[in-house]
């Protein structure tokens, strides 16, 4: 099941996260301020009505999705959806393909063969990035052990789909 990962020319530009459990503007402001303290975040904009934050990343810093998730959890809420927006340069992808970014692997699931170019929206499918019930369903049906653990060997592996 393991294919060789490649270090793709991928730039992590933005992420859109939907946070569940938010009930008030105070909660949203607390969450926003917590995310803003991360050193790779350059800007964060809320859509208060949809409970979505659009986070823009610094070009010269490595983005760590787990740290964003932790900030949301510490604020008392959960991530229910995370869309990662990468800038690719002619990257051929297919099911089970993965690329390396900032010490982590990004592993494609349920995608057709395709060449990615320019900004592309990838939805993260891992535990605590989607509702718990949905993760359990996916974990039960997939053959990828790295999906269940979120690790490939000792490397943090995020699972993404188009």
């Amino acid at each position, binding site marked *: 099941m393991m294919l060789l990962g490649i270090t793709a020319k991928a730039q992590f530009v933005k992420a859109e996260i939907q946070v569940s459990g938010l009930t*008030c503007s105070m909660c*949203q402001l607390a969450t926003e301020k917590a995310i803003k303290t991360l050193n790779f975040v350059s800007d964060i904009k809320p859509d208060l009505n949809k409970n979505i934050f659009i986070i823009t990343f610094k070009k010269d810093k490595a983005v760590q999705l787990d740290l964003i998730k932790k900030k949301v959890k510490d604020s*008392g809420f959960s991530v*229910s959806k995370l869309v990662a927006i990468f800038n690719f340069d002619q990257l051929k992808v297919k099911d089970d393909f993965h690329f390396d970014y900032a010490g982590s692997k990004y592993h494609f699931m349920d995608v057709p063969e395709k060449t990615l170019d320019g900004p592309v929206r990838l939805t993260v499918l891992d535990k605590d990035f989607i509702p718990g019930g949905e993760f359990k369903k996916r974990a039960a049906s997939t053959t990828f052990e790295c999906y269940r653990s979120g690790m490939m060997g000792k490397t943090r592996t995020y699972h993404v789909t188009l």
Partner: protein
Amino acid sequence: MKRLTILLGLLTASLGISAQELYVATEPASNMPKNGLALRISQEGGFQNGYQSRTIPEMMYGLDKNLMVHASAYLSNFFQNNYKMEGWSTYAKYRFLSIDSTNRHFRGAVYAKYSSSNNPIDFQEINLEGNNSGWQTGVVFTQLLHKLALSASVNYNKALDNRDAQLFPTNFADESLGYTFSAGLLTYPKVYRDYKQTNINVYLEFLGKSNLGRNENLMDVAPAVQFIINSKLRIDVSQRFQLWGNMTRNGKNMYLIRLEYNLYNVF
């Protein structure tokens, strides 16, 4: 009571509008964010024995996503003509359950409080908000349904001797059970666009107590309105009414006005 709560729930749910869980008279099962600090000042009072009032400065802090603490001080002229420092309390709440989905969640928390007072013990009601020394432990569950929030709590209270040799009277019950039901509704804004939009929440809370082993009970209803300004400053205005009660107390039908300021990521 049960019928009333169901009715209230159905009524508010059927209106399809939004609600809040920043209750005025009780605490929700949700906690403050980690490293969040809130400073409060509450003023409550009434005309039961001439005008009397109590001032409660309070600090709240989120130690961890699941654990928050409060520290309060109590000052009043409830038991003498002049205002005096009566005592203090500490409170901690641990969230053990959190089921989140978009625009709804269900949460559960346990809490405990220790309170110290130097007042004389003149009333049957065990009141850990300035009147009595003692401790409390309880459990609370809060359900958010879009913007309607419903919360229910049960707690056990044990009164101790007050400070300054104010011994607990042997003819009073020193244990009580508290039970609360709270509903909160966000009425404004209809659509969130900006943190600067003032939120207006309305609340209806039922606050009951029964002294254990005695036929001594009371039930208050506390309607309240709340303004949240700039997502930081919270203003609560509430008036309690005793629905029924047969225990002696000095805090009947009190108003409450509270200011709270929230700071984020303080440490």
